[in-house]
C-alpha cells in the first residue's frame, strides 16, 4: 500500500499477495488428505475476510481502504480453498484481479488529480471533474460489491455457495461470508461517495488544478472496467443455465483424491439461487446504509466516530495488530538482543577478561611473594648475618691506623696492668 500506486495495483491484484492462494491450490493434493487443516484454512479465511472488512469500514486513506479490501477478498479465496472449492478460489482470484487493479489504478488517478492527496477527508465532489476515473471506479465498485452479472458476482457467489454446501462447509461460514459481502458494499460505496459525491473538501489551492488524468492512465482503467464486467462469464454457473466452464477447465488439476469424503449433499438449483439472492440482498443493505450515511448527508467525522462508538478506534487502528506484534515480537527480540549483548559484554567477555585479570593479578601476587617472601628470607638471612657480624666487623676495618691505635691501647692497658695491677 505504501508503494507507488501502479505497484500496489500489481501486487494486490494479481501477483504477490495472491501467491499464497495459488500455493494452497497447487498443493491441493496435500490439503485434501488433511481435512482438519482445510477447516483451519476455511475458518482463517472467513475470519480474515470479516476482520479486514471491518477495518476497511473506517479508513480515511483511499489506498488503505483498498488494501484492506484486498485482505478481505483474499479471505474469501482462502475460505473457498478451505471448503474444497479450489476452482472457485482461483476463479475469484482471477475476477478480483480485474476490479482490484482497476480500483487501485483509479485511486492513483484520483491521487494524481489532487496532487498526491490520499486522504478521502480532503476529497469529495470529484464526479464531474474527473469523469472517466469516476465511471470506471464505479464499475469496479459494482463488480466487487457483487452486483449481479458483473465479474465479482459469479465468483463470490460460487464461494459463498460452496462455503455452505460443500462437505467441509458450514452455515456459519456462509453467514460470515454473507456479512462480509454487506460490509464490502458498504465500505466501497463509502469510498465512492466520500471521493466523488457530496461537498468538496479539497483545499482551494489544489481545487483549481484538478484535472482528468492523461490517456496513458485512463485507457488502462477503461480496459480493466470492461474486464470487471465480462470476466465472470467464463464461469457462468449451472443454476443460471451456464456450464461452469472455468471449473471444468480446472477439473484435471483439482481432481479429488481417492479418499472417502462421503457423498456430497444434493441441493437444487433453486436453493443455490435463493442463497445468491440472500447475499445480493445483504449487499444491497450495505449499499443502502452507505448511501444514507455518506451520500444523502455528506461525510462528517464526528458522526462517523459516534456511529461506531468505542469500536471506532479499534477499527481505525486495525485491531492494534501492529502494536501487538511490536509488543510481542519486535520489542521482545530487541530486548533479547540488548540483553544478550550485555550478557556478552559482562558475562562472556567478563570471563575472558576475568581470566586475563586473574592471570595478571596472580602474576603480581607471585611477584610480591617472590620479592617479599622468597627474596625476603634470603635478604633476612643476609641481613641477620650482617647484623650479627657487626661487632666483628669493627675490628676488621682495614685501616692501619686503627690497628695501630688498638695495639697502642692494648699495650698501654697491658703496661698499666703490669705496673699497678699486680701490686
Amino acid at each position, binding site marked *: 500500500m505504501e508503494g507507488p500506486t501502479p505497484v500496489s495495483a500489481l501486487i494486490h491484484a494479481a501477483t504477490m499477495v495472491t501467491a499464497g492462494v495459488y500455493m494452497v491450490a497447487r498443493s491441493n493434493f496435500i490439503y485434501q488428505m488433511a481435512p482438519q487443516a482445510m477447516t483451519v484454512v476455511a475458518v482463517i479465511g472467513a475470519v480474515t475476510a470479516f476482520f479486514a472488512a471491518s477495518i476497511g469500514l473506517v479508513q480515511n486513506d483511499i489506498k488503505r481502504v483498498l488494501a484492506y479490501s484486498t485482505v478481505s477478498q483474499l479471505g474469501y479465496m482462502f475460505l473457498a480453498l478451505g471448503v474444497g472449492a479450489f476452482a472457485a478460489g482461483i476463479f475469484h482470484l482471477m475476477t478480483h484481479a480485474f476490479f482490484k487493479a482497476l480500483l487501485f489504478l483509479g485511486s492513483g488517478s484520483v491521487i494524481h488529480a489532487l496532487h498526491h492527496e490520499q486522504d478521502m477527508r480532503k476529497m469529495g465532489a470529484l464526479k464531474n471533474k474527473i469523469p472517466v476515473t469516476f465511471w470506471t471506479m464505479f464499475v469496479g465498485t459494482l463488480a466487487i460489491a457483487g452486483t449481479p452479472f458483473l465479474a465479482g458476482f459469479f465468483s463470490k457467489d460460487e464461494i459463498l455457495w460452496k462455503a455452505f454446501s460443500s462437505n467441509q462447509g458450514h452455515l456459519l461460514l456462509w453467514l460470515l461470508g454473507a456479512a462480509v459481502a454487506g460490509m464490502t458494499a458498504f465500505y466501497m460505496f463509502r469510498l465512492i461517495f466520500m471521493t466523488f459525491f457530496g461537498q468538496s473538501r479539497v483545499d482551494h489551492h489544489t481545487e483549481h488544478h484538478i484535472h482528468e488524468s492523461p490517456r496513458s492512465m485512463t485507457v488502462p482503467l477503461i480496459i480493466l472496467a470492461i474486464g470487471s464486467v465480462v470476466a465472470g462469464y467464463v464461469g457462468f454457473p449451472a443454476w443460471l443455465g451456464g456450464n461452469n466452464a472455468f471449473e471444468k477447465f480446472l477439473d484435471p488439476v483439482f481432481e479429488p483424491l481417492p479418499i472417502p469424503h462421503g457423498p456430497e449433499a444434493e441441493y437444487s438449483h433453486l436453493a443455490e439461487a435463493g442463497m445468491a439472492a440472500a447475499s445480493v440482498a445483504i449487499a444491497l443493505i450495505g449499499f443502502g446504509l452507505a448511501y444514507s450515511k455518506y451520500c444523502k448527508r455528506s461525510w462528517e467525522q464526528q458522526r462517523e466516530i459516534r456511529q461506531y462508538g468505542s469500536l471506532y478506534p479499534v477499527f481505525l487502528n486495525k485491531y492494534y495488530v501492529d502494536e501487538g506484534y511490536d509488543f510481542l515480537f519486535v520489542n521482545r*527480540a530487541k530486548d533479547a*538482543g540488548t540483553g544478550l549483548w550485555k550478557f*556478552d559484554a559482562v558475562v*562472556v567477555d567478563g*570471563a*575472558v577478561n576475568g581470566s586475563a585479570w586473574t592471570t595478571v593479578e596472580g602474576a603480581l601476587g607471585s611477584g610480591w611473594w617472590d620479592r617479599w617472601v622468597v627474596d625476603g628470607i634470603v635478604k633476612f638471612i643476609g641481613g641477620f648475618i650482617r647484623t650479627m657480624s657487626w661487632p666483628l666487623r669493627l675490628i676488621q676495618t682495614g685501616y692501619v691506623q686503627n690497628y695501630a691505635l688498638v695495639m697502642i691501647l692494648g699495650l698501654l692497658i697491658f703496661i698499666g696492668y703490669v705496673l699497678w695491677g699486680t701490686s
Partner: protein
Amino acid sequence: MDYFREHILTIVAFWPLAGMIVLMLFNKENKTLIRWWANVVMIVGFVISIPLWVWFDRDTADQMQFVQNIPWIQTIGANYHVGIDGISLLLVMLTTLLGPLAVLSSWEAIHDRVKEYYVFMLMLQAGMLGVFVSLDFFLFYVFWEVMLVPMYFIIGVWGGPRKLYAAIKFFLYTLFGSVLLLLGILALYFIYPNLAAQHPEVAGRFGTGSTFDVLAFQAVASYLPFAYQYWIFLAFFVGFAIKVPMFPFHTWLPDAHVEAPTAGSVILAAVLLKMGTYGFLRFSLPILPDGTKYFVPFMIGLSIIAIIYGALVAMMQPDMKKLVAYSSVSHMGFVTLGMFALNPNGLNGSIIQQINHGISTGALFLIVGIIYERRHTREIAQFGGLSNVMPMYAVVFLIMTLSSIGLPVLNGFIGEFTIIMGALQQNLWWAVAAGAGIVLGAAYMLWLYQRTMLGKIENPANEKLIDMNLRELATLVPLIIVAFWIGLYPAPFFRVLDKPVNNLVLKVRPDYFQGAQRLNAEIREPR
C-alpha cells in the same frame, strides 16, 4: 611445466613469502612501488592458483592431489607433506581470491609504515595457504602459529583506538587454544606407533615409526580407544572452536574485527575463521569419529546458540562493523550446524557456506571500510539515505546484503538451504532453529541497510559523499561474480565436494550409506 605441476602447492603457498622477501629489499620511502609490488604479487599468486582448479581431478576428489612428501625433521618424524582434496581446494581458492582483494582495498587506507604493512599481509597469506595444504600435523601447526604473528601486528599497529587490547586478546586467546591443540596432536603422535604395530594394514602403508602424518592418523582412527578420542576431541575443540569462533569463545572476534583495518577484517572473516572449521573437517571428524559422534549434541547445541545469539546481538549493534562481526558468529553457527549433522547434505552445505561466508562477509567488511574511509565513523546513526549520493555503492551493498541473508539466486541461499536439508534429516528442531536464525538474519541485515542507505539524507556530513571509485569497485566485482556463480550454478562446487564429503561421512558413520540405501528401498517399495 611439469616441474610447476609437481610442485604447484609449494609454489602457490610460498609465492607470497618470496614476494615478501623481495619487498623487504625495497626502499621504504617508495610507497607507490611497494603498493604496486604487493598487489602484483597477490594477483600473480591468484593466477598461479588457477591451475589447481583446472587440473584438479574431480573423479578422485576424495584423494589427496598435487602431493609432495619430503622428509623434514627426521628425528621426530615430521615431514614436509602437502596435498589437497576437494575441501581444501575450495579453501585455497578462496584464500588466493580474497588475498589480492584485501591488499587492493588497502591502497589508500594505509599511510603509515606502508612497507611493514605489506610485508605482514604477504606473510599472512603464505601462512593461511600453508594451513590449508598441510598434511603433516607438525607442518600444519607451524603454519597455524606463524599466521598469528602478522595478524597480531596488523591489528596492533594499523588498528583503531583499542587496537592493543584487541591485538593481545586475539593473540593470547588463539594461542591458548593452540596449546591445547598441540597437546592433542602430541597424544596422537605418541599413541600412533602402538596402534600401528597392532594393525599390519596400517603399518604396511604408513610404517610403525613416530609420525605426524594426518593420513596415518586417519588410518588408525577406528582403532583409537574412546577415552583418547574423548579427550583429544575436547583439546581439538578448544583450539578450533576459538578460531571459528563458536559460542562462548567468540568475544575476541568483535574486538578484533572492529579494531583491525579493513583488509585485516576481510582476511580475518573470510579466511582465518575458516581455519577453525577446516580443522574440524580435516582432523576432528576423520581422526576422532567416535569422539565426534559422542559430542554431536554438544556441538549442535553450541551451533544453535551461536546462530540465534549472534543474530540477536548483531541486531542491536550501533556500529556497522560490530554488527557484521556478530553476524559472522551467527553464520559460522550455520557452518558448524551443517558439519555436525554428519550427513552429506549437512557437510556439503557447511563447506559451501564457508565459501559463501568468505565471499559475503568479506565483501561486507570491504563495504563498511569504504564508508569508513570517507566518514571516519561506522556508527549506523550517523548515516541514512546514502543511496541518494552513492548509488553504485548502494547497489553493491544491496547485493551483498541479500547474499548474506540467503536470498535465492545468490550464494547464501545455496549454503543455508543445503545445511537446513542436512539438519532436517537428523532432527526437525535443528532445522527450526536454523530457520529462526535466517529470519533474524534478514531482520538485522535489512534493518542495517534501511537505516544506512534508504530514506532522505538527514546528516549534512553525508551530502557530499563520493561514490565508489574504480579501485573500490574492482575489490567487490569479483566477489559479486562468485556470489552469483554459486547462487545460479553451484554444480562445479558440489562436484568437487561430493566425493570428499561422502568419504568423510563414511569415516565418521561407516554404516550411513547402507542405512540410507535401506531407507530409499523402503520408500520405493512400501511394506
